[in-house]
C-alpha cells in the first residue's frame, strides 16, 4: 500500500495500533472482575482496564509514554475513533434487528425515556446555580449530556466562548475522559440492586455516545447473562433513537426548558449572580 498522504502514514502508524492490540489482549485476558459494595457490586470489564492502561500510555498525560508514542502519533487516535466506532455500531445493529418486534412492544417506554434525560437538569441545575453559584455556564453544563450534537447546538446559539459554551465544554471533556467508565460502573451497580427492570436500565444506556452505550450495556449484559441479547438490543435501539432525535429534543425541549429553569432559579439568588456575571 502506498502511503501517499501524511495522514495515511499517520493512520498506519504501527506503534499506536501495536499498543492498542497489546493492551486489548491483556485486558481481555484479565476478564470480568467484580468488587462487592454494600448489597451490590461494582463490575469491571476489559474495556475498563483498556481505558485505564492507555491513559498511562497517552503522551499528553504521562511524560514517560512520549518515548513509546509521540504526541503526533497519538493525535490520529481522535479521528480514528469517530470512524472506529462504526464496525461496532454495525454489530450492535445486528443485535437490534432480530429483537425489533420485542422493542416495538416496549415502544412507549422507548420514546418516553428519550425525554427522561431531562431529569439531568432537575438535579444538576439547582446544585450548579444555588450551591456552586454558577452563572450561565450552568445552562451549557446541565441542559444535556454534552455530546457532540449538544456542543454544536450551544456553539450555534451562544458561541463556544460564551459562558454557556464553557459549561458545555467542561462537561464534554469530563464525559470524554470518564463518562464511559462512569456509565459502566453506574449501570452495573444499579443492576445488582435489582430496583429497576433490566430493560429500562438498558434503554437508559443509550442516552450518550456509542462507546458510552457499549460500555454501559456490556456491563448490564454481564450482570444479567440470561437477558444478554435483549439488553444489548434495547440499549442499541435507544442509542439509535438518541442519534436520530437527540438534537431535536435538545433544540425544542431541553434548551428552552433549561433557559426557563435557570431564570427561575437564578431569580432567587439574583444579587449573587449579577456580581458573579460581572467578572
Amino acid at each position, binding site marked *: 500500500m502506498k502511503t501517499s498522504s501524511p495522514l495515511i502514514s499517520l493512520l498506519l502508524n504501527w506503534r499506536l495500533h501495536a499498543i492498542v492490540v497489546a493492551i486489548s489482549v491483556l485486558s*481481555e485476558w484479565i476478564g470480568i472482575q467484580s468488587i462487592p459494595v454494600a448489597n451490590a457490586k461494582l463490575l469491571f470489564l476489559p474495556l475498563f482496564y483498556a481505558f485505564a492502561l492507555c491513559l498511562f500510555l497517552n503522551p*499528553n498525560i504521562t511524560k514517560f509514554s512520549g518515548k513509546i508514542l509521540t504526541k503526533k502519533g497519538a493525535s490520529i487516535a481522535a479521528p480514528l475513533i469517530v470512524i472506529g*466506532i462504526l*464496525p461496532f455500531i454495525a*454489530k450492535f445493529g*445486528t443485535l437490534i434487528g432480530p429483537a425489533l418486534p420485542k422493542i416495538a412492544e416496549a415502544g412507549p*417506554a422507548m420514546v418516553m425515556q*428519550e425525554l427522561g434525560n431531562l431529569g439531568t437538569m432537575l438535579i444538576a441545575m439547582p446544585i450548579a446555580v444555588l450551591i456552586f453559584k454558577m452563572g450561565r455556564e450552568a445552562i451549557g453544563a446541565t441542559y444535556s449530556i454534552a455530546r457532540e450534537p449538544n456542543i454544536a447546538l450551544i456553539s450555534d446559539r451562544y458561541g*463556544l466562548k460564551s459562558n454557556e459554551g464553557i459549561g458545555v465544554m467542561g462537561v464534554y471533556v469530563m464525559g470524554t475522559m470518564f463518562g464511559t467508565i462512569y456509565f459502566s460502573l453506574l449501570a452495573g451497580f444499579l443492576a445488582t440492586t435489582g430496583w429497576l*427492570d433490566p430493560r429500562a436500565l438498558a434503554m437508559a444506556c443509550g442516552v450518550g455516545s456509542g462507546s458510552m452505550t457499549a460500555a454501559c450495556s456490556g456491563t448490564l449484559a454481564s450482570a444479567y447473562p440470561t437477558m444478554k441479547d435483549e439488553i444489548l438490543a434495547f440499549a442499541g435501539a435507544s442509542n439509535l433513537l438518541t442519534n436520530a432525535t437527540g438534537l431535536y429534543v435538545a433544540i425544542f425541549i431541553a434548551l428552552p426548558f433549561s433557559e426557563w429553569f435557570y431564570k427561575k432559579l437564578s431569580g432567587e439568588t439574583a444579587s449573587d449572580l449579577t456580581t458573579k456575571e460581572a467578572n
Partner: protein
Amino acid sequence: MSTSIENTLPHEEETKLTFKENLIALAVISLVSLVSNWAGTGATPIETLPAMLIIYAMVVAGLVLAKMIPIGFPAVAWVSLVSVLLTIPMSPVSEPILAELKSISFLAMVTPILAYAAIAITKMEVDLFKRSGFKIAIISILVFTGTYVGSAFVANTFL
C-alpha cells in the same frame, strides 16, 4: 476559568478524514478488533474474518448512504439502520448474517475502542480538566447520573 477559552474549542485539533482514509482506518480497526476478539473468545482471526467482512460492508454502505442522502442523519445512524434492516426477522439474509456474526463478541469489539479513546485525549482536554476542576467534575457526575437514572426511571414506568 473563562479567560483562555480560545484554545479549548473542540474543532481546534479536529482532523476530518476523507472517504478513502476512512476505508483504510476501518480496515486497520477491523484487524485490531479481530485480535482483541481472538483474546476474548478464542475464535481465531481466520475463523472470524468473514464476519468482519460483513461488518465492513455494512459500515461502507452506511457511509455511502450518509453521503448520498444529506438529511442531517449522522453516519452512525445510517450504519445502524443498514445493519438493523438486514437482520430484522423479515429479512431473507438475516439468518446467514446472524449465524456468521456469532463468532464476534460485542464486548471484545469495545475494548480496543476504549484503548484508542484513552490515547485520543488531547493536551487541551487535560488542561481544561485541570483548570475547570472540582465544580465541573461534581456537576458532570450529577449530569451523568441524572440523565441515566432519569431515563431508566421513565422507561421503567412505561414498560
